[in-house]
């Protein structure tokens, strides 16, 4: 039975490979899978890129259609160090790197690092699409078959409406939690460690001839003058005084966000325009 099972698996894998070649697709079910897919695309598919954004779920909201020469390696729920680690292990490096400053305190995700830097997995993923995270058969089955079932599409439309609604029903609670977090006393030991780590990454990139810039993503205006936000701003200015820092837009009071931290799609459009203009100025990026 063992040999027959292995042979049958091989048969299925070959069929699946053939199917993917004929019907290419890229699908994901959730944020964590998005992160892995984003990393895999950056590692295996992108040969060269001029400008790279590294950030968290905050910068992941940037509208990339408006930023054609950029690649966004922002990872939802994760840290900038996860993106920087990927960059460190890459041969072809970008000209400019823009690093989000909002979540410097969040440490790297060891599990994520293990997945994207596993030599065995990377060898498989680089050589065969069937092992890539955006080519999972059950995800395809779900998206293509289940959603086609009668009646489900109607629900899906309702669902989409809810997702894009700006009035999050737990907005108040979420904002209160963020206010509490942003008002906490700064743990200088952790902060020093994180900045030391960031400094090492920046020195490494600059030694390779890359221009490094920083930017602060807008959050709810009630947070921007609280302890954590102010301290992070102060440290970035202090530690990286030679690097340009794209600060918050002047109309910050207009940013309400969905949950205190993440921009709504409309706010995201506005901020992306602001970011683009500032990036053009600081990095002298020319658009055709």
């Amino acid at each position, binding site marked *: 039975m063992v040999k027959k*099972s292995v042979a049958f698996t091989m048969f299925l*894998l070959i069929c*699946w490979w053939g199917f993917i070649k004929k019907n290419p697709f890229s699908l994901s079910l959730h944020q964590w899978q998005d992160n*892995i897919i984003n990393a895999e695309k950056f590692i295996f598919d992108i040969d060269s890129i001029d400008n790279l954004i590294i950030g968290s779920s905050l910068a992941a909201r940037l509208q990339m259609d408006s930023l054609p020469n950029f690649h966004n390696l922002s990872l939802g729920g994760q840290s900038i160090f996860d993106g920087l680690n990927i960059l460190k292990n890459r041969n072809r490096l970008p000209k400019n790197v823009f690093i989000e400053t909002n979540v410097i305190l969040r440490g790297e995700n060891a599990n994520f690092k293990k997945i994207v830097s596993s030599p065995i997995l990377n060898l498989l993923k680089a050589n065969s699409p069937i092992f890539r995270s955006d080519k999972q*058969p059950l995800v395809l089955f779900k998206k293509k078959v289940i*959603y086609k079932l009668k009646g489900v599409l109607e*629900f*899906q439309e309702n669902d989409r409406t809810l997702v894009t609604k700006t009035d999050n*029903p*737990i907005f108040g609670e979420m904002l209160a939690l963020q206010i509490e977090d942003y008002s906490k006393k700064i743990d200088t030991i952790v902060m020093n460690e994180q900045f030391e780590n960031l400094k090492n990454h920046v020195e490494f990139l600059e030694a390779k001839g890359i221009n490094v810039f920083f930017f602060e993503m807008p959050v709810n205006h009630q947070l921007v003058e609280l302890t954590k936000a102010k301290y992070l701003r102060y440290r970035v200015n202090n530690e990286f005084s030679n690097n340009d820092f794209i600060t918050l837009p002047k109309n910050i009071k207009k940013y309400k966000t969905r949950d205190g931290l993440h921009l709504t799609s409309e706010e995201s459009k506005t901020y992306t325009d602001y970011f683009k203009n500032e990036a053009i100025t600081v990095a002298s990026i020319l658009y055709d």
Partner: protein
Amino acid sequence: MLFNSFSFIGLLLITMIVYYIPRLSKHQVNILIISSLIFYAWNNVSLVTLLLTSAGINIITSYFIGTKKTSKPKLLAWFGVGSNLLVLAFFKYAGLISLTFLKDNSISEFLVSIPLPIGISFFTFQGISLVVDVYKENHFKNDKIVSKSFIVHTKNTLFFISFFPQLVAGPIVKSHEFLPQIKRKRFNEISWEKCFSEIVLGYFLKMVVADNLKDFTFWIAYPYFQGRDSYSLITMLFGFSFQIYADFAGYSLIAIGVARLFGYNLKDNFFFPYISSSFKEFWKRWHISLSSFLQEYLYIPLGGNKKGKTRTYVNLMITMMLGGLWHGAGWSYAVWGGFHGLALAIERFFMSNKQQNQRIHIRAIKTLFVFFMISLAWLLFKLPEFSHVIEYVKCILQNFDKYPNIDVITSILLYSSPVILHHLYHLYATNFQSRSIHSLRFAFYGILIFFILTNSGIPGSFIYFQF
């Protein structure tokens, strides 16, 4: 070291090759001890000291009792059991005790900061089983199991306690089940089909079902669940039931399959628990090694059901609450155990008066009810604060006016379906014998490997590691 890591596969292959070299066959136990210590020390070398200390206590007490080199075997047995419990209490419950009873001071800060050594709940229980089995001598004759040579006894005991397939998350192996199996093993005695089917099914449950479900049940977290609709909340609750089953049953199956590769048979730890139509049946099917351990070493010594009805109910509650606390150092785990104890007691009260109705539709309703109640109780695992559990239930009842999140619901249904189908297939197979399905087993396992390779979730640590 995780079962779902390449380092584990490397260790397993190297150990197997060395283990079955005919010239080294007399060192098989030593080889497995070394591999087990490497396995345990992989992420934190200092933990080996604790494992060896715990094993040392059990080696010495069981040796002196088993070889009758003590005039006070009862006292020594108490010392052995007490020492195991003390080690467990210090490393696992010191933080909980200090948070509950001590004021904020440097001692309580120290106690709270003690890290939980991985697998401690499992290997201390195995130590207790050894000391009790040797003292009671009701499963084996000591002169056949406890060697007169201290070195041989040390090797066998250390092997029993540290055997890597079951070291960090079970199944909990009792000494009377394991020690008689220690002897030279041959490569041609390996039951490849059994090992293969257990390991493949185990990895499928862990990597395809549990690891994918975890990214949807992740949202059972305060305050995020408050914004969700009732349909999604109910689906996430059931999804977590399937996730915890797939995670732990998957781990157990891999452990059993790997142990079998070395010629050791560990008993089944799960037997389709979600088809149970009563709580009693559930505990005969869920984490069988723990429930049978608690029954044998706690419930029966407390008097079991032999000391009157009231005492039986009290014994049930004590056993289940302590069983709950075994899962974690938090009062929510005791409440979880208490919930199951109460359910067992109520069930026992009514079952003793009425005959159980076995008609299929009644059994189906009972099964669904038991599954719903058990799923509800899992909330105490996911949300350690009791007020958040209440809030979750409130949201289930109140959020029916919100649109269902089809994306979450269909994803959970999709990744839960293998567990549901596997349970249903078991029901079918026990009622109708089908040769044609049996002959297609190769295709079944072939499909499982295909999904392991192409559709695994983002690897997460095993839920039961935290216990």
